[in-house]
């Protein structure tokens, strides 16, 4: 229970459109349950901050939703889609769960690592790519092996196909 009694009051480092989007989500839940909007809020904030969250932004979300900051950190630290350290602009996640693994996901991962010159969990020095550490089943097993590039699914991959996709990234 925090001291501020009016959620959303005061100055915020969150952009007006971000706040509008958060408000939209808050409105979906019963009054006083604005905590439920934290995932949507973080997703929005991360989207507008080149794909990662900062302590400052998480605090701003906490303040905006009028919930203790630790509850925002808990969510951000729990879900693998949230990054709490600066990462490359384009996020690449190769599914390494069972179906994809059986269809050659590991090979794809080492191919990408070699291609980008980084290890999983790292970003390229030019700040372009971020290769996520571990991605679990994305429910596209029929098209295994698969990867997700900036939220877009690519299925039935081969190293050549991967090259094509990554080379096309701006």
């Amino acid at each position, binding site marked *: *229970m*925090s*001291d501020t*009694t009016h959620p959303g009051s005061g100055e915020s480092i969150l952009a007006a459109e971000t706040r509008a989007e958060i408000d939209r989500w808050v409105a979906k839940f019963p009054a006083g349950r604005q905590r439920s909007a934290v995932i949507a809020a973080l997703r929005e904030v991360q989207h507008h901050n080149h794909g990662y969250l900062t*302590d400052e932004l998480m605090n701003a979300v906490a303040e905006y939703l009028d919930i*203790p*900051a*630790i*509850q925002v*950190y*808990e969510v951000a*630290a*729990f879900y693998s889609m949230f990054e709490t350290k600066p990462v490359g602009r384009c996020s690449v996640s190769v599914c390494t769960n069972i179906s994809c693994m059986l269809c050659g996901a590991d090979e794809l991962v080492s191919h990408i690592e070699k291609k980008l010159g980084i290890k999983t969990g790292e970003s390229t020095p030019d700040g372009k790519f971020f290769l996520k550490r571990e991605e679990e089943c994305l429910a596209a097993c029929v098209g295994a092996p698969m990867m997700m590039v900036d939220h877009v699914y690519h299925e039935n991959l081969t190293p050549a196909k991967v090259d094509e996709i990554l080379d096309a990234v701006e």
Partner: protein
Amino acid sequence: MSDKKITIEVDGQTLSADPGQMLIEVTDEAGIYIPRFCYHKKLSVAANCRMCLVEMENGRKPMPACATPVGDGNKFFTRSKAAIAAQRATMEFLLINHPLDCPICDQGGECELQDLAMGYGRGISRYTESKRAVEDKYLGPLVSTDMTRCIHCTRCVRFGQEIAGIQELGTIGRGENMEIAPYIEKTVDHELSGNIIDLCPVGALNNKPFRFRARSWEMRQAELVSPHDAFGSHLYGHVWRGKVMRVVPRDSESLNETWISDRDRYSCEGLYSDERLTEPMIRQDGEWRTTDWATALGVAASGIRKTVSDDPSQAGLLAAPWSTAEELYLIKLLSRSLGVANLDHRLRQTDFSAQQDDAAYPGLEIAIADIDTQDALLMLGCRPRTEVPMFAHRVRKAVRNGARVMIVNEQDDDYLFARHAHLVGPDLSGQIAALCQAAQANVSGELQSLVHNATVSDAHRQMVKALQEAEKGSVFLGHAAARHPQWSVIRSLASALAQACAASLNCMGEAANSAGAAMLGVLPHRDEGGREAVQTGKNVSQMFADPLKAYLLFGFEAENDCASAAQAVETLAAANHVVCVSSYLTEAMQSYANVILPLGSFVESAGTFVNCEGRWQSYTGAGSPLGEARPGWKILRVLGNTLECEGFDFNSAEEVLTAAQQAVGEVALRNVFTTAGSAGHSDAPDSGASPGLYTSDPVVRRSRPLQEVGHTAASPPLQATA
């Protein structure tokens, strides 16, 4: 929940229960033990440790007793083969990542994990892979962490959310990488933070100052009562080789439940400070030297005798409001047999102008346990977290039960509970006058114009409405009000307001024994039991404003504990004869005293405090007095004998207590105040030192860990400014 009872069977035993009650509550009541880690009777159910698994008849899988609501006719087996197998399996999992470092863990010997591992663990581990290790977190000077030991029960997290009113710890990461931490490493500086130590079922969170000092089985447990606030929380002191090593809560559902404040837990760190006085001291030809008791008492008594035989109105006796009832009673006897009417304990009060209107003692009209169930609470001049941390806890509970809490304060605070209405700003009495106007309260005399001229705002009307609508409404006057230069006006207005709203009126006593001191007549105008004194003496403020020749100061430091501290020090320095009975030696004291007698600390003697409910709470003491220090009642008894006073032949603290209680008799509390005194004019020179949470009395001030807590930084400086 309907009030129809249902019947269940546990291990063949028939038990009656409320429908929907969790099984573990029912078995706990019946004394059937089910192992648990995450369940705690004062916290919400998390059901995440799975240690409490039991077998249920026709159940498809083992059920967690802490999260299984019972239904009529249910049959449970807590010791069946299936139940024990489930419990053992859980234990094996819990121990997989546990370091098993009991020999170097402070929790060893009082660890729930260790105990349950004895009962449910295997002697041999089947786990040969490497264990995870978790970095320790810095949580400040009070709580040490060994996070590798954590079993993720989340009791500490829920405590923050549900009890402290602020969540500082959380679960960061997931799966095997989950850790308990404040995300951004910072100290946990809530005034109840130490309770997470008791809650933590393993050795992950421990008492930091107590680290590696003693093993739990080497210590003796002694009952104590908190000397730091008017609630009088129940404590245990753990004693090793005559010294109190640490303090833990003693359950008392109607007072502190299972919690204690950090002030109560860590003040013991100030007991053996370097500033402790361990030998009597006298000043001779301007030089201080230590001496024996007989010499010191002789010097002390002769100075007093000299002044008193010339003119008893030239002597003054002042006692700390955290002295025990035994000590206070002997001081009263001393004043009576010496014929000294200048007697007081209200060190931080500044307005005495309507003291004839005082209630029998500063106290609450409602029971502490009933605070939780009030519908509306109006707090006037009260900062609960600083004044009485456990009171803040009770108010938070009330808010959670739906109470409307309203606050009028001159100084703002971070309350950590939701307020229905809130006014901050100068002129406390003017604000209460406006409330009186809004409530059409009946006031008389000079208060009439004050109420008439007040400007009523919507906030005032809102507060009055909430109070009037409440079935159980109460008004609380806090320390800030009691120390206010307009105290008599404030309380008269509050009294009229409470009457107009049919609310109770409650005064939060300043210190652990303010109530006892008032009942025992350690006042210039009262005798024991609230009877008017034959002759009215000077109050504390007058004693310092119009210098006297001789003073006896008992249990406090004039430079730190008085409203007009600077003036007090000056006046005392100019007096002929000043006797200090004190646990600590200070520089200032050496500048004004002639004799300083070493007083045993509150743990070093049996004693009694009367709390703000008027409850007499005795304890037997823990540990022996340091050096030549002696329990206060013994010092006073011998001083009485040396001064040839009548009736000082007590042989034990109990005898003193019995006499004290007889002298007081029955006292009834009625908080009705009608006299406005000298309406707004105080005869005190300054507005009174209002101490911070950790500067409130001599012991607390010397607890180094408490001084390091972030909270103190925000509090006013230690000494009142000149």
